[in-house]
C-alpha cells in the first residue's frame, strides 16, 4: 500500500478500508459464531461428563444392590473386583476375596471338578453360562452358586479377564430337591397304589392321568387312556347312572360311587367302588380324581353269601314245614288205629257175650282156643296197639310243639327275671320243702323277652335242678345273672347228680334223656327251652360234672326284637 499517492489514492484507500472493515466484520462474526459453538460444545461436554458421573454412580449402586455378587477376574483368574454382596453370600469382605481365585473358595473336590471346565472356557475365550458350583461360606457351610461371565479384552484384542455375576441358588436347589422328592413321593404312591387312579376333566370328562394300576384294571396303556373319556370305560347301559354319580362327585356332594360297572378294553366288566373328589391341575384345569377299588370279588362273595343265606332260609323254612306237616299228617293214621282199636274192642265185647252162649256147644280144645283168642290174645294185641299209638301220639305232639315254638309270635317286653324265678320256685315249693333244698336267688337283671317263653325256660331248668338232685345230699340251687352290653345272662347252678361227659350231646337232643331214668319225662323240655332261647337271639349252655353238679347258663340278646326273628305264618293243612 503507498501513502504518497494520497490525493488520487484517497478514494482507493477509502475503498480498501471499507473492504478491510468488511473483512473485519466478517471475521468478527466468524469468531463469535465459533466461540458460541465452542461454548455449546463445552456445555455439551460438561453435561456429558455429569451424565457419565451419574451413570457410573448408578451402575456402582446397581452392582452393589443386586442380590448377585458381581466380580472381575484378570486373565490369571485372580479377583480384581468383588462387589460387597459377596459378604452376604459367602461371609467374606470384598477385600478378603480380591487377590484370591474362585477355586480358593471351593472345597478341594469341587475345585478339582470345575478347574478343567473353566480352563477350557478361558482358553476358548468363551462366555461362562450358568455354571453351577459349590463354594464354602466363611463359616464352613456350603453354598451353591450359579456363575455367569463374559471375557473382556484390551483395545489390541488381548484377553484381559472375565467379568460376571455369581448368584446364590442354594435355596432354589433345596426347593428343587424338595419338589423332586415330593414329585417322586407322589409318583411312587400313585404308581404303587393298589387302587386305580384316574384324573378326568370335570367339563369334557376326558382323562388327564391314569396310574399303572388303572391301566391294568382297564387293559389300556396310559397313552390309550388319555385319548378316552368317562363314557368309554363304563358299559352302555350304566352310563346314565355313571354320569349322575360323576356329576355329584364333581359338585362335591358325595365321595363314593359304589359298585360302578367298568368296561375293560377287551369288553369284560368289573365292579369298582370309586371314591372321587375335585382337583385343580397346574394349568388351572378343573378335574376330578377318582380312586378305583376293584370290588368284583367282594361283590361276587356277597352274592354267594346271599345265595347261601337264601338257601339256608329256604332249607330252614322247609324243615319247619316238614316238622309241621309230618307231625300233622302222622296223626291221621293214628286216629284210625285208635278208633278201630276201639271198634274192635266193642266188636269183641259182642263176640264175648256170644261166646258165653256158644261155649257149651264146643269141645274142650275148641273152648280153650276160642277163650284164649278172645279173652287173652286179642285184648293183649289191642293193648299193645293202644300203648304204641299213645306213645306215637306223644312224640308227634312233642314235635308239633317244637315246630310251633319256632313259629309262634313272641311278644317282647321288659320281663323282671326275679319275678319269673320266684313264681317258678313257688310252683316247686312242695318238692323244695320235701327234699330240703336250699335255694339262693342272687341279683337278677331285667330281660327283654316273651314272658311266657321266659317262664318256660326258667321253669324247665329249675324243675330239672330240683328233680335231678343227688339223693342223700342236701340240695343247693343258686340262681343269679347280669346284663353285659348286648347280652343278658343268668344261670342256675345245682349240686345235683351232674351229667357224664359222654351224655352231654343228649342234653339238648330230641327225645333223649341222660343218666338214670328214675324221673318221668319225655326228653323234650330242654329242647323247647333251647328253641326259645334261640328265638331270643341267644342260647342255653350246659356245664356239668358227674356227681358234682350242673350249671345251666341262659344267654339272651338284650335287644331280641332286633334279631330279625322271622315267624311268618306257613301254610299247612
Amino acid at each position, binding site marked *: 500500500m503507498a501513502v504518497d499517492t494520497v490525493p488520487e489514492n484517497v478514494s482507493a484507500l477509502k475503498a480498501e478500508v471499507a473492504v478491510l472493515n468488511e473483512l473485519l466484520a466478517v471475521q468478527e462474526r466468524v469468531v463469535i459464531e465459533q466461540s458460541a459453538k465452542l461454548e455449546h460444545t463445552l456445555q455439551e461436554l460438561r453435561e456429558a461428563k455429569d451424565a457419565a458421573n451419574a451413570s457410573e454412580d448408578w451402575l456402582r449402586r446397581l452392582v452393589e444392590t443386586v442380590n448377585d455378587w458381581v466380580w472381575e477376574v484378570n486373565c490369571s483368574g485372580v479377583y480384581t473386583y468383588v462387589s460387597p454382596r459377596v459378604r452376604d453370600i459367602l461371609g467374606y469382605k470384598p477385600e478378603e476375596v480380591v487377590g484370591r481365585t474362585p477355586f480358593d473358595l471351593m472345597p478341594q473336590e469341587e475345585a478339582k471338578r470345575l478347574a478343567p471346565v473353566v480352563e477350557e472356557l478361558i482358553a476358548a475365550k468363551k462366555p461362562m453360562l450358568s455354571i453351577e458350583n459349590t463354594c464354602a461360606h466363611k463359616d464352613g457351610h456350603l453354598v451353591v452358586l450359579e456363575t455367569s461371565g463374559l471375557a473382556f479384552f484390551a483395545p489390541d484384542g488381548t484377553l484381559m479377564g472375565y467379568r460376571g455375576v455369581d448368584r446364590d441358588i442354594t435355596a432354589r436347589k433345596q426347593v428343587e430337591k424338595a419338589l423332586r422328592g415330593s414329585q417322586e413321593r407322589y409318583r411312587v404312591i400313585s404308581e404303587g397304589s393298589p387302587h386305580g387312579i384316574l384324573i378326568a376333566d370335570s367339563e369334557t370328562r376326558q382323562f388327564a392321568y391314569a396310574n399303572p394300576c388303572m391301566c391294568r384294571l382297564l387293559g389300556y396303556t396310559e397313552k390309550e387312556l388319555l385319548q378316552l373319556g368317562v363314557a368309554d370305560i363304563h358299559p352302555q347301559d350304566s352310563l346314565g347312572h355313571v354320569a349322575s354319580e360323576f356329576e355329584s362327585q364333581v359338585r362335591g356332594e358325595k365321595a363314593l360311587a359304589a359298585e360302578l360297572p367298568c368296561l375293560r378294553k377287551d369288553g369284560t366288566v368289573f365292579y369298582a367302588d370309586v371314591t372321587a373328589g375335585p382337583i385343580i391341575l397346574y394349568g388351572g384345569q378343573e378335574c376330578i380324581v377318582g380312586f378305583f377299588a376293584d370290588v368284583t370279588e367282594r361283590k361276587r362273595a356277597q352274592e354267594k353269601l346271599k345265595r347261601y343265606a337264601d338257601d339256608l332260609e329256604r332249607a330252614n323254612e322247609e324243615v319247619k314245614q316238614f316238622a309241621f306237616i309230618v307231625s300233622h*299228617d302222622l296223626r*291221621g293214621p293214628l286216629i284210625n288205629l*285208635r*278208633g278201630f282199636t276201639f271198634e274192635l274192642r266193642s266188636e269183641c265185647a259182642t263176640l264175648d257175650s256170644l261166646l258165653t252162649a256158644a261155649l257149651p256147644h264146643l269141645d274142650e280144645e275148641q273152648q280153650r282156643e276160642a277163650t284164649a283168642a278172645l279173652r287173652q290174645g286179642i285184648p293183649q294185641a289191642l293193648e299193645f296197639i293202644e300203648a304204641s299209638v299213645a306213645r306215637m301220639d306223644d312224640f308227634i305232639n312233642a314235635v308239633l310243639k317244637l315246630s310251633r315254638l319256632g313259629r309262634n309270635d313272641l311278644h317282647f317286653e321288659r320281663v323282671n327275671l326275679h319275678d319269673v324265678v320266684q313264681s317258678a320256685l313257688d310252683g316247686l315249693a312242695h318238692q323244695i320243702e320235701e327234699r330240703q333244698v336250699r335255694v339262693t336267688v342272687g341279683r337278677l337283671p331285667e330281660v327283654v323277652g316273651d314272658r311266657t317263653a321266659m317262664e318256660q325256660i326258667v321253669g324247665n331248668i329249675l324243675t330239672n335242678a330240683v328233680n335231678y338232685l343227688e339223693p342223700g345230699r342236701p340240695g343247693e340251687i343258686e340262681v343269679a345273672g347280669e346284663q353285659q352290653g348286648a347280652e343278658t345272662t343268668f344261670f342256675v347252678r345245682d349240686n345235683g347228680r351232674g351229667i357224664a361227659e359222654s351224655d352231654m350231646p343228649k342234653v339238648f337232643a330230641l327225645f333223649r334223656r341222660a343218666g338214670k331214668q328214675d324221673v318221668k319225662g319225655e326228653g323234650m323240655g330242654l329242647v323247647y327251652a333251647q328253641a326259645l332261647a334261640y328265638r331270643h337271639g341267644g342260647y342255653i349252655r350246659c356245664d356239668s360234672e358227674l356227681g358234682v353238679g350242673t350249671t345251666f347258663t341262659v344267654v339272651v340278646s338284650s335287644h331280641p326284637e332286633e334279631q330279625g326273628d322271622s315267624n311268618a305264618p306257613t301254610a299247612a293243612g
Partner: protein
Amino acid sequence: MPQLQQADKREVTILLAEDDPGHATLIEKSLRRAHISNRLITVQDGQAALDYLFREGTRAGEERLRPTLVLLDLNMPVLDGYQVLERMKADERTRRIPVVVLTTTDDPREVDRCYGLGCNVYVTKPVDYERFSEAVRKLGLFLSIVAFPDGS
C-alpha cells in the same frame, strides 16, 4: 235277608268231605252211635265236594238235596278244605251253608284261618277215640241249634 227257618234236623243232609276212608267210617259210626241218623254223603276230595254242592262235573244234573250241612276235612287231594271253604263262601248259592271243619290239628293259626274263611265250627279230631266220639256227638247238638237258610 233270606228267609231263615228252623229246619227239621232229620231232613238235613250231611256232606262229609274226607279223604281218609278210616276217618270217614269212624265219623259215620260215631254219628250213628250218637243217634244222628241223617242222610250222609261221603266224598274223598275237595273237588268232589264242590261238584256235589254245585251239581257240576260228575254230579251235573243230579237233583239237589237240601238243606245241607258240610263236614269238611282240611287236608284233601285235588282241592283242599281251605279252597272248598273259599269257593263256598264266595258263591251266593252256597254262602250260607253251615260248615264244620274237622281236622287233626288244633294249631291256633289254622283255626283262625278257617274262621276267617267263614267256617261255622271247628272240631279237632282227637287221637283219643272217646274224645273223638264226643266231638262228633257235639255235632248232633250243633245240628239242632243251627239255622239253615231256606232253600239252600
